[in-house]
């Protein structure tokens, strides 16, 4: 095997993003869909840190910091919405979320 270069890390982040994307599409549990979204964000973070490290520029790393902040806020609000939905529908599966009105 050859030495690890930045493109290895980019391929890995592409794989992580694709796994998260497939998870969002294929799973029907809303909790697992949220977790797959986190996995997609992680793939993006890995790509940003790799670019930041290989171009010796800190901007990418600082952007990862902000992505983590936004992801934490997103998870908190998303889970609160999920709990509110569960109280109404008694289910967390996406096929039960097919009506807008109550």
């Amino acid at each position, binding site marked *: 095997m050859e*030495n690890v270069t930045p493109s290895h890390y980019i391929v890995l982040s592409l794989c992580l993003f694709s796994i998260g994307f497939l998870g969002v599409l294929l799973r029907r549990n809303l*909790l697992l869909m949220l977790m797959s979204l986190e996995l997609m964000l*992680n793939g993006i973070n890995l790509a940003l840190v790799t670019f930041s490290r290989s*171009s010796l520029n*800190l*901007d990418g790393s600082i952007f990862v910091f902000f992505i983590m902040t936004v992801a*934490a806020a997103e998870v908190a609000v998303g889970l609160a919405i999920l709990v509110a939905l569960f109280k109404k529908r008694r289910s*967390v599966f996406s096929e039960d979320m097919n009506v807008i009105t109550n």
Partner: protein
Amino acid sequence: MSTVDILFYFFALLALGGGMLMICSKHPVPAAMFMIVSLVGVAALFVLLEAFFLAVLQILVYAGAVMVLFLFIIMLLDVGPEGGKASRMKLISGFAGAFFTALLVVVFLIMVQSSGWINNGEGWSEISDTNEFTNGSNLIFSASVKSFGYGLLTKYMLPLQISGFLLLAAMVGVIVLSKKASEEGSN
């Protein structure tokens, strides 16, 4: 093959395997556990990339706070495994997922071919151990938290304050949402 390369492959396997098992497991609690494995793998890759502060943040924020919140909600709602009925939507979304993954790979290959730096095999440039934080208008990458703080408090002052405000808005939003839900639940 040096130690760093072996560590890269090990943690890459951890991150990918955790992710795969996460989207494949039927029950949500093991899925959350595999997700933690994947997040720790990515944190170790951050260490290999010499972004130590981000690795610590990844463990604290993701594996610590976010996944505990997920596990708490899973156990609070007492979510069971998914039923076995495979619908037509599943086939369609499987095709859509495969298509867009293939599209991503093609775009990546085009990017590799068209840009010189990513595939020239020269590897990593050394981190300079200077005491300067900036190089002209650029912030210099360094392993220290000090330069991170310098960047956050100078060039990224406004985004830092906006993200603080975003966290406040998220907190208020969550309180309002859960309060409304519990009031309607009691009626």
